[in-house]
């Protein structure tokens, strides 16, 4: 943990502050949400890493999707993701968002979450314990350090592709409205 290295703070304040101030919005899908209360309360205490749950997506920059994603919950996930302000990271819990997990042949569970929104990291396990959650968060730090956690940029670059994938599931998505995609690719 290089939270106390002043030189790094002066060199790249954006990266460092994004690393050590992860405000989390949880999406309570599936069984993973049961791992969240112990990891943010006294036993494991996520706040010492600067990880703090917030109540609205406008204040958050880390999005935890805690379990399988059914067709009905994917829509709010897309809405929540698009409401978060720009340097934002997504982490999916367990095997279900990776490839469907034990719901791989269900008519109502989408199998690959990263076809619809970009995912910066997966925490494997069914379900991951709080230690695994912290391992995932510290690994997310190294990803941010190396500049590899750039899912939000990828979403912008390939916005039309993501949007067409989403609309293949739902037909015409009325909300959220389409971004202006021109001129955003170079940012």
């Amino acid at each position: 943990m290089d939270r106390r290295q002043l030189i790094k703070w002066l060199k790249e304040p954006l990266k460092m502050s994004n690393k050590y101030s992860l405000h989390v919005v949880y999406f309570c899908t599936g069984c993973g949400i049961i791992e969240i209360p112990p990891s943010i309360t006294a036993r494991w205490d996520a706040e010492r890493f600067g990880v703090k749950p917030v109540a609205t997506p406008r204040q958050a920059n880390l999005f935890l999707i805690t379990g399988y994603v059914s067709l009905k919950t994917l829509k709010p996930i897309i809405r929540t993701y698009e409401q978060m302000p720009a340097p934002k990271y997504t982490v999916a819990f367990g095997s279900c968002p990776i490839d469907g997990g034990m719901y791989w042949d269900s008519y109502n569970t989408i199998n690959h979450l990263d076809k619809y929104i970009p995912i910066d990291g997966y925490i494997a396990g069914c379900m991951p314990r709080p230690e695994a959650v912290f391992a995932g968060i510290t690994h997310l730090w190294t990803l941010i350090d190396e500049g590899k956690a750039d899912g939000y940029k990828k979403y912008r670059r390939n916005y039309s592709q993501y949007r067409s994938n989403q609309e293949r599931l739902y037909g015409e998505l009325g909300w959220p409205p389409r971004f202006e995609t021109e001129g955003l690719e170079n940012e």
Partner: protein
Amino acid sequence: MSSIEEKITANFDGIEVRKIEEGRIEVKTKKEALLSTLNFLKDEGYGHLGLVSCVDRIEEGIFELVYILSRYLVGGEVAVDQASLIVKTEVPRGNPTLVTSVKVFETAEPYERELHEMFGIVFSGHPRLTPLFLERDIDLPPMRKDFDTRKYVEEEFESIPPVED
């Protein structure tokens, strides 16, 4: 004071009552007599409709509907016989229509909506048979045995291309 089994067989013709085990009694009734059976049982104190469910017996060509009733109080006092009643009735798969039981038990409303959505059973007289859980229209109701989930998943989800830069 006769037991509930005797009362049911005395009041209805062609009804099968069988004690499965302690506390669970199975009542098999005809499709036409379902409403009157439910009405009779409600008057006997079985005021709690716990579940309406459905079994797809594809070999016999029927849907078996299951209503689970329980009672706790009789005339304001705790009931001595608290056995649950499992009322079963059969609907042909070819023409799955049934009269709704919302007028007897209001709690049946969401269950019947779900059964309409998942099995395609039409409840005549139901106030709103609109979609409850599903986000999209599926041609064959997905809980039927002849619905091929793997084929559906491959056609609908696996065919979506992954996003690559």
